[in-house]
């Protein structure tokens, strides 16, 4: 667990300066920093000490780790493991049992106040949090312990960021996000199901370069990646503006690559970098493959109505209308009967006035 500088480490690994500068330039552009910053990133990063990173996986599907490790972008993600010292990650580490837990405890002790805590997965709270435990301890317990000495926490994936699928109705385990529990540490939410690997890399590079976390939006996501909607940067946007929509997945519109809004695309309400950064080494993103956006980087996307109903369409059936019509008719008839009775009552107490009565009043 040597913590030499990143520059030394990269040289040892045989990574050329050219490859490293290319990486820094890519990071600068991906984070929308001025081009000149690439050199600053290179300088700062080569002098930076590799931070210790503890990665805790809670109620999750390992999709986030899969996304990170299986990205094809050359060297980008392999660089991650050179940029940081990943001291605990129970899917990737070779150690198991007590040895594995020891490495976590050692890292927490040796780098107290300095290590980065990465969390993927939500934390169950119901029934004392027993629905997810590691080495006999609940996720809540592990998170609170690890968060105490963390410099910052990176919540990777929608589960850790917003509760995700475990948090979907009816949420049997009482799953919550990291930021629902940890209030006294900076938390960055890298949402997505799974999140884009380059975003994880970008946030780490930013932290190493500037010694601080990037600017966040109101949901705690880095603005440089989540600042715009999928719809705003979608290559199918011109078709939306022209009102050309695919109506089914195999009609002429779909074959012509028209907008998928009417097929339930959640691009207009989803903030993420898929449309620009893309997936699988820049190959494509879901809309490019002909399927609408599911909105996976937004909180509660699982509960936001059907994936296949347009955003402006009713999310559920109008179940109250028939009852309302019957109730309306019944009350209407009731009121009209009441009015009849009122009229009859008024008629029965009516006294015909004679001229004599009127004269009497006049006097």
């Amino acid at each position, binding site marked *: 667990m040597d913590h030499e500088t990143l520059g030394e480490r990269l040289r040892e690994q045989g990574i050329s300066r050219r490859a490293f500068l290319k990486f820094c330039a890519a990071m600068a552009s991906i984070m929308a920093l001025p081009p000149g910053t690439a050199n600053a990133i290179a300088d700062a990063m080569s002098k930076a000490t590799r931070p210790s990173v503890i990665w805790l996986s809670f109620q999750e599907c390992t999709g986030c780790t899969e996304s990170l490790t299986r990205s094809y972008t050359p060297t980008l993600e392999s660089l991650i493991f050179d940029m940081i010292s990943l001291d605990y990650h129970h899917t990737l580490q070779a150690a198991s049992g007590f040895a594995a837990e020891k490495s976590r405890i050692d890292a927490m002790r040796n780098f107290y106040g300095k290590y980065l805590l990465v969390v993927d997965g939500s934390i169950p709270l119901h029934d004392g949090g027993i629905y997810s435990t590691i080495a006999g301890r609940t996720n809540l317990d592990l998170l609170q312990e690890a968060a105490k000495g963390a410099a910052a926490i990176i919540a990777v994936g929608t589960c850790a960021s917003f509760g995700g699928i475990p948090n979907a109705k009816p949420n049997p385990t009482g799953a919550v996000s990291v930021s629902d529990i940890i209030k006294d540490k900076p938390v960055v939410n890298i949402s997505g199901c799974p999140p884009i690997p380059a975003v994880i890399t970008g946030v780490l590079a930013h932290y190493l370069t500037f010694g601080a976390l990037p600017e966040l939006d109101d949901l705690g996501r880095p603005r440089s990646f989540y600042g715009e909607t999928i719809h705003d940067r979608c290559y199918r946007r011109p078709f939306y503006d022209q009102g050309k929509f695919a109506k089914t997945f195999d009609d002429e519109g779909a074959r012509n690559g028209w907008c998928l809004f009417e097929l339930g695309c959640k691009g207009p309400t989803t903030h993420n970098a898929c449309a620009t950064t893309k997936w699988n080494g820049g190959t494509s993103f879901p809309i490019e493959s002909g399927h609408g956006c599911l*909105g996976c980087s937004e909180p509660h996307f699982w509960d936001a109505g059907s994936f296949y109903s347009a955003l402006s369409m009713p999310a559920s059936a109008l179940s*109250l209308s028939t009852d309302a019509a019957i109730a309306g008719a019944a009350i*209407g008839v009731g009121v009209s009967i009441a009015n009849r009775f009122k009229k009859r009552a008024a008629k029965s107490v009516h006294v015909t006035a004679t001229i004599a009565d009127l004269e009497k009043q006049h006097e």
Partner: protein
Amino acid sequence: MNEVLFLTWVRGMGLNIAIGIFVLGTLLRLLEIYTLGRKPDLATPRHRAGASGLHTVFRRSLPPPGMFKKSPASYVAGYVFHIGLFIVVLLSAQHIKLIQSLTGVWWPNLPAQFIDAATVVTLAAMVLVLVERINKPVKRFLSTFEDYAAWMLTFLPVLTGYLATHHLLLPYTAMLALHIISVELLLVFLPFTKLMHVFTLWGSRWYNGDVNAKKGVAV
């Protein structure tokens, strides 16, 4: 509750409740009004009952003599915003799609650019009638809270619809949710305010014309 959940609620349970109240209120009011009845008129009609009712339905759409000159803006803007609302609400592709998804009934739509122009004109005309209402002493005197509330309930859906379509001011998620909830508020209050004229207009005009004719004021 975040924006996405708010949007999901307004297009789910919110819409369900609003349409429920709208259907209930409209049926209730229509039944209440049309079952009210009148005492049998025992007098011989002064005028042979003809088409006075039907005539009045149309005649009331024209300004009475001299009135147009007195406040042309009311008539022009009034007509413009009513026709504008008809176009924007019933002839835009988005709204037809919605009606089709709820009822299966659909009809051809107008181009988006035309709807856009109609929306802007409608908004301008509505602002003009509000200015008239505030500026003309008699109108201001006759106006109650309900008049201003009804104006606001009608204006907001048009405004938020335009802003949502063009992704202005707020993120689309929030603006679309505001648009839908503003329409829901309109639906909820429509049966219980003067906005009920949507349904009662033709009937009451016909009734007035008919009764006036029987009293000898035929048209």
